[in-house]
């Protein structure tokens, strides 16, 4: 090979193009051409991912710099607009639906209906969903949750709850020795929320495991554990 290589299609082909992209030496138009290939060609995308892994450790040399406080607020604002699932949203807002359920149902039955109706559209039919009624202090039902196989979870408020500037966080409390509560994310006090249980927690979704809702500082628990302010709790049971 000569010391000077003027060709623009590098010897070494795709792996080298992918390496050049990851290294960052391409100009704007070359980068956008490569970015399009990443979108379209899985094999090429995986070549790029391999280079990300190979060269990633070079970033160790970069000294961390704490970003200004305001940056997080801007991120929070940018992701604030909740995107409720269209299916769920439209069901929730459907007046006809409400008229039917309004005829003869308590809040609890309504919540059950919604949770199951909705879960029916997302859960695999091969295994019955697990259901939990999360009771408040005093025994009033606070939420109804249903979890389908595969970890799709729907939680529906069964009575009027307020969070008073706080965030409501949902927790899975496994049975047995693994009983440390695991966060399933934030939920809304006044509308149904769909959550996908992370794959590593799906094995803990068993009958007799519990779900709990806690009140947390806005944004959720910082400690990874629920606060003492548990507003509702209930066991998962087979339907």
């Amino acid at each position, binding site marked *: *090979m*000569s*010391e*000077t*290589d*003027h060709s623009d299609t*590098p*010897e*070494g082909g795709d*792996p*080298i193009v992918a*390496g*050049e992209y*990851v*290294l*960052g*030496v*391409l*100009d*704007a138009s070359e*980068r956008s051409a490569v970015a399009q290939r990443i979108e379209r060609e899985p094999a090429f995308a*995986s070549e790029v*991912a391999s280079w*990300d*892994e*190979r*060269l*990633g*450790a*070079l*970033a*160790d*040399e*970069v*000294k*961390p*710099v*704490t*970003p*200004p406080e305001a*940056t*997080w607020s801007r*991120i929070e604002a*940018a*992701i604030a607009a909740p995107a409720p699932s269209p299916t769920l949203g439209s069901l929730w807002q459907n007046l006809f639906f409400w008229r039917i359920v309004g005829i003869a149902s308590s809040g609890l039955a309504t919540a059950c209906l919604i949770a199951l109706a909705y879960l029916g559209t997302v859960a695999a039919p091969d295994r019955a969903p697990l259901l939990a009624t999360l009771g408040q202090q005093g025994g009033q039902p606070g939420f109804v949750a249903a979890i389908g196989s595969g970890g799709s979870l729907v939680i529906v408020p069964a009575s009027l709850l307020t969070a008073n500037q706080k965030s409501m966080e949902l927790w899975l409390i496994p049975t047995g020795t693994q009983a440390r509560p695991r*966060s*399933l*994310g*934030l939920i809304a006090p006044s509308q149904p929320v769909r*959550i*996908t*249980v*992370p*794959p*590593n927690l799906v094995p803990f979704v068993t009958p007799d495991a519990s779900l709990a809702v806690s009140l*947390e500082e806005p*944004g*959720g*628990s*910082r400690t990874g554990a629920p606060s003492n302010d548990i507003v509702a709790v209930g066991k998962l049971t087979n339907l």
Partner: protein
Amino acid sequence: MDAIAANRSQLAAALARVAAGDRAALRIVYQDTSAKLFGVCLRILNDRGEAEDVLQDVYVTVWRKAGSFDPARASPITWLVAIARNRAIDRLRSSAVSRRSEPIESAEDVRDDAPAALDLVVAAEQRERLKTCLGELEERHSAVIRSAFLDGVTYEQLAQRMDVPLGTMKSWIRRGLMKLRTCLER
């Protein structure tokens, strides 16, 4: 499980929760990684305002794309660093602002600069292997590869910095990449 593996799996678990739409988990990812990623953006862009904009963009991207993170194939921090670098480099390429042109640090500077334990999340073994393989390259080849990665500069800018023809710079980098790939896969 050692501290690095625990750290890595914690971050991977947080990303899985982000994929499920959990804002609290994004906050955790941000707390754990934003200083690193801000450092990466700042190094490439050399402008705090631009770097802040890109950082915001990075975490909004993480929020939307966490579902595509595959813990079996990528380590969480390299996945995040890749997003930050790509965003920062794209921003740099799109801006008309001309970049500083600094000489590439000598290998001596590189050694002095090596921070021992800045980042626990990238496994020490991975770091050591890269270092060994970079060490097997011609010194000027490894120096330009390192500089390209950290500063996000183009072939053309690298050629100017090193005062060599563009074709020569391409040849250095491509040869370096080929050797590096072979070495890392041994």
